[in-house]
């Protein structure tokens, strides 16, 4: 396995960190979505195909997630970038399942890390109670900057450690044809996740009819292709 050049690793680290920040703290402009994060990583690795395969599969899992306020939801960005590193340069049909397993685990850990950050932000509020009670603009600005910095560090750590683990796995993993079945299970799990989420969101009204119509058209196109 050819090692990645430092500039490429730096680019991947920056991209994964940005994806992590985009989830909650900054912009929220789809850059944390698995498909976008993975496609960017694939471009950086000169392997857009790997990025798109990882991205489409993990996006199916993410379609089930509603990132609402206090709920704990997975942070896909940093883990997805690392998963593309795992798949890049390999036969994707053998490595995609394991990369998905890795990305899902990392996304769950990312979700927990967000909760820890929020608790740390709460402790910051307690420390600055006097400034907040006085309406001090400097205190509010400091709390905001500390929160953003905390999320930057969180995303950077998730990306860096995720990339290191992915590189380690890439070096030691021996892929065989058996792992194509792991990939098949991962694809099935992704489709089940997206379908389950879509059925739940649809309820029993017009959205369910639109969902069913979409499935019928999709099936027809897939058969005719």
């Amino acid at each position, binding site marked *: 396995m050819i090692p990645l050049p430092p500039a490429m690793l730096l680019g991947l680290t920056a991209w994964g960190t940005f994806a992590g920040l985009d989830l909650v703290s900054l912009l929220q402009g789809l850059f944390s979505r698995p498909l976008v994060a993975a496609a960017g990583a694939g471009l950086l690795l000169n392997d857009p195909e790997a990025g798109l395969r990882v991205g489409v599969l993990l996006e199916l899992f993410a379609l089930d997630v509603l990132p609402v306020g206090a709920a704990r939801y997975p942070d896909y960005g940093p883990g997805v970038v690392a998963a593309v590193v795992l798949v890049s340069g390999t036969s994707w049909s053998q490595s995609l399942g394991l990369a998905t397993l890795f990305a899902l685990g990392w996304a769950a850990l990312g979700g927990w890390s967000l909760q820890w950050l929020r608790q740390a932000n709460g402790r910051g509020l307690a420390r600055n109670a006097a400034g907040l009670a006085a309406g001090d603009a400097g205190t509010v600005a400091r709390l905001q900057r500390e929160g953003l910095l905390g999320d930057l560090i969180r995303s950077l750590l998730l990306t860096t450690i995720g990339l290191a683990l992915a590189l380690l796995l890439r070096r030691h993993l021996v892929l065989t044809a058996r792992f194509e079945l792991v990939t*098949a299970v991962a694809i099935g799990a992704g489709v089940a996740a997206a379908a389950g989420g879509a059925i739940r969101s649809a309820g029993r009204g017009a959205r369910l009819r639109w969902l069913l119509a979409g499935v019928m058209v*999709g099936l027809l196109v897939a058969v005719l292709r």
Partner: protein
Amino acid sequence: MINGRARAFLRLLTVQGAWSFERMTGVGIGYAAEPLLEDLKSADPGRHAEAAVRSAEYFNSHPYLAGLALGALVRAEYDFVPGPQVARLRAALCSPLGALGDQLFWIGLVPAMMAMAIVGVVAGLGLWSLIAVVAVYNVVRLWTGMWALNTGLATGTRVGAAIGASWLPVAAGRAGLAAGGLIGLALPLSADWLLDGGSSRGVMLAVLTILGGLGLGWRLGPRITSVRFGLMAIGLAATLAWGLG
């Protein structure tokens, strides 16, 4: 005319930056309110001090629509609306703005756009479909943020009526229908694209996993999240693959 809109808008892009369980996005709203309240400092320092304290108190809503609340609350401060009434307005805006934003964006536009991107990738448009989706989405997202802030500042305590009469409720309903149709379209196409060239054994395994996942979801409801099911199913398959080796 209230000054500081551009700075407030930029700060709204990080409104969840200091999210905490105690005040949720309160600190972010306070941070974004600061440039808008600047003129009040010279006009009425006492009122400004009170407004600054109120601005960073508990608040939660959808982040893209937070500008509606921010603008309305700042306008209310300039209109010298009594403090307790400003606090009530703040509390009253949380739930409707959260629910409307979730319907329009998190359950509607985001899944619709991502499903469209999947369809584009599967159709062979590759990265171009993604670039188009991200660009269009961000134009909508930024425009909504600016519209929200301007509408809030223009309407003040009448913001509730302005929201009800705006494009938001209609768009939320339509985005949901679009999401349903596009996710439905993306499901078979993405499965076909990902399984293309695979063995019949692999296809059979994928179909069994889909049925198992849907069955577990039906039996266990929200207790089995997509991540949990994925970790369980793929983890089991990977263990078997290693074990058989």
